[in-house]
């Protein structure tokens, strides 16, 4: 494509993407209808190709050859434990960090060549809910709106709209210092939405929230997707990915270790985890050998507890008990549960999620610093 045509294409797609330009509703609708038809626009909100990112002069490999395609209009999940590189990926896609190598385009704009265009077309909300504590809820939204170069009157209107929608109207004129964790997250999300971006990056949006706030946030996210927003979501919770994301990738040590729909992943996992506890570790080891035959997945022994992923919970439990019965070992506890992220990892990598006491990436250290600063 020639340079002129390319500039033209970029400008057009910018207009198409940016719902916040003050066009009349009809013009907006026309542009949004026709421009994608005229231009060969990508079907993907995000396309990242072979992204590598290192820290500390290459000593730390945070992302190792990650390739992603996030379709428009749905939630795409990035699942992984702490330090797996999820946040680094979000930071690269939101132009905060540059990739060491590889290319990425967001809403059709290259993240390193057209960062400002990328910034105009995204919203970012994160686990650290970066709202300005000294400003009120309204002032926070107004600031973000103005920095998005929206018109003042629209910023005010949009801010009140969002505060209302997220149940923050009553707290609109209180400084955010007085907000609860759930309120902060909602305000953070509202700030990401002020400019009405077509794509949202949500970095662990519900980490550390109470169950009710988590449910509230999930409903909000589902509502946004219904309105046509694309979402790239990172999470440590399989439950969250399962509820929200149509497709997901599993990240471990900066590498994608699995991808597919959540059903596909679950099918690979088996549906249920059978957990048996024994009186002694010796018993647990012997028990593990005895029950190995109830599943094709390996049994995992940790102390006196044996976990095994099974196809059918009750039947496998009965089968397991039959096998142990008469061997002289006592089962002291039995439970069936839905697979957790730990189980995904166990099944995909053959080992448990590693303890991340030592930071594996710079973000981790920063995250801790931010958390510490907050407490």
């Amino acid at each position: 494509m020639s340079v002129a045509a390319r500039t033209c294409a970029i400008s057009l797609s910018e207009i198409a993407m940016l719902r916040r330009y003050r066009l009349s509703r009809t013009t907006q609708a026309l542009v949004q209808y026709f421009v994608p038809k005229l231009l060969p626009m990508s079907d993907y909100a995000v396309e990242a190709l072979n992204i590598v990112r290192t820290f500390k002069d290459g000593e730390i490999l945070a992302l190792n050859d990650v390739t992603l395609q996030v379709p428009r209009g749905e939630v795409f999940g990035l699942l992984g434990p702490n330090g797996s590189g999820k946040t680094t990926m979000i930071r690269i896609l939101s132009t905060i960090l540059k990739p060491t190598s590889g290319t990425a385009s967001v809403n059709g704009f290259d993240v390193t060549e057209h960062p400002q265009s990328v910034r105009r077309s995204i919203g970012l909300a994160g686990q650290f809910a970066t709202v300005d504590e000294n400003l009120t809820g309204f002032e926070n939204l107004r600031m973000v709106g103005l920095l998005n170069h929206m018109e003042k009157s629209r910023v005010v209107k949009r801010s009140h709209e969002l505060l209302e929608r997220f149940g923050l109207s009553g707290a609109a004129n209180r400084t955010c210092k007085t907000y609860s964790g759930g309120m902060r997250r909602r305000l953070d999300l509202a700030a990401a939405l002020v400019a009405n971006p077509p794509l949202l990056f949500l970095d662990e949006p519900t980490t550390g929230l109470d169950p009710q706030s988590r449910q509230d946030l999930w409903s909000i996210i589902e509502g946004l997707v219904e309105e046509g927003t694309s979402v790239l979501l990172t999470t440590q919770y399989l439950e969250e990915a399962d509820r929200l994301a149509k497709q997901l990738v599993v990240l471990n040590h900066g590498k994608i270790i699995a991808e597919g729909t959540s059903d596909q992943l679950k099918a690979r996992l088996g549906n249920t985890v059978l957990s048996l506890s024994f009186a002694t570790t010796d018993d647990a080891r012997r028990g593990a050998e005895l029950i190995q035959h109830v599943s094709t997945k390996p049994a995992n022994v940790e102390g006196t507890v044996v976990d095994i992923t099974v196809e059918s919970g009750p039947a496998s439990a009965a089968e397991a008990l039959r096998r142990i019965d008469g061997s002289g070992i006592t089962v002291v506890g039995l439970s069936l549960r839905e697979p957790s992220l730990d189980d995904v990892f166990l099944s995909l990598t053959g080992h448990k999620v590693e303890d991340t006491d030592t930071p594996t990436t710079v973000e981790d250290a920063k995250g801790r610093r931010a958390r510490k600063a907050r407490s």
Partner: protein
Amino acid sequence: MTLTSSTERHHRSSLRWAVSDILTMARRNLLALFRIPTAMVFAVIQPVMFVLLFRYVFGGSIQIRGFDYVNFLIPGILVQTTIFGAIGTAIGLAEDLQRGLIERFRALPMARMAVLGGRTVSDLARNVLVLVVITGVGMLVGFRPHGGVGAYVQASLLMLLFAYCISWGFAYVGLAAPNSETAQAMTFPLIFPLTFASSIFVQVAKLPSWLRPFARNQPVSQAAEAVRGLMLGTPHGESTWITLIWAVGLIAVLGPLATSRYRRAL
């Protein structure tokens, strides 16, 4: 090519947006200043205490040839306070970095320079407020600037410019510090010798001989001499020009230093 409008419009008006972004950021910082009691105490109450302390406690024991001490003191306190104010730049930036706000700003389509620009501009605005308050309090305790209104305004502008240039150095400190407490601690070894080993409170001639060369020639003393001379209408040699040269030199070095540190800050 009538359709290139969007990108081009942004380039053409980028200066307008940069100004608008800086003002948005400055406004945000000022709102915080008025809401945090400690920040307000630090900015306004503390210099007033300094005025009272030196006017009524130490002042009686300090003799300056040819000056009423209160007239000698107030221009000095003004210079000291505006420079102390730059500590706020360091703390504010360190806090924004620590809380992850800078990260949020980076993902916004705002002018790149607006974070540092907004911070230094809000400090400038605070210094204007401090200037008015201290002048008022000074007059109440007997300060009589005989240089005239025009010279007083000139002196004020010179002082604000000088402090603004200094604040870029403190912006660098704030970005380099791991947290706001450290940022504050890092500024003291810089600011104490500059403000106390100077002609702000006493005459350089009365200092020990080993300290005199530094105290006489360092930029803060020059600024204090110039501001005092202009305000009181007394001779102050070349100090106005020397202060201006320092100001331009400082910002020429500290500005790019802070900016490049900001680029690498995350």
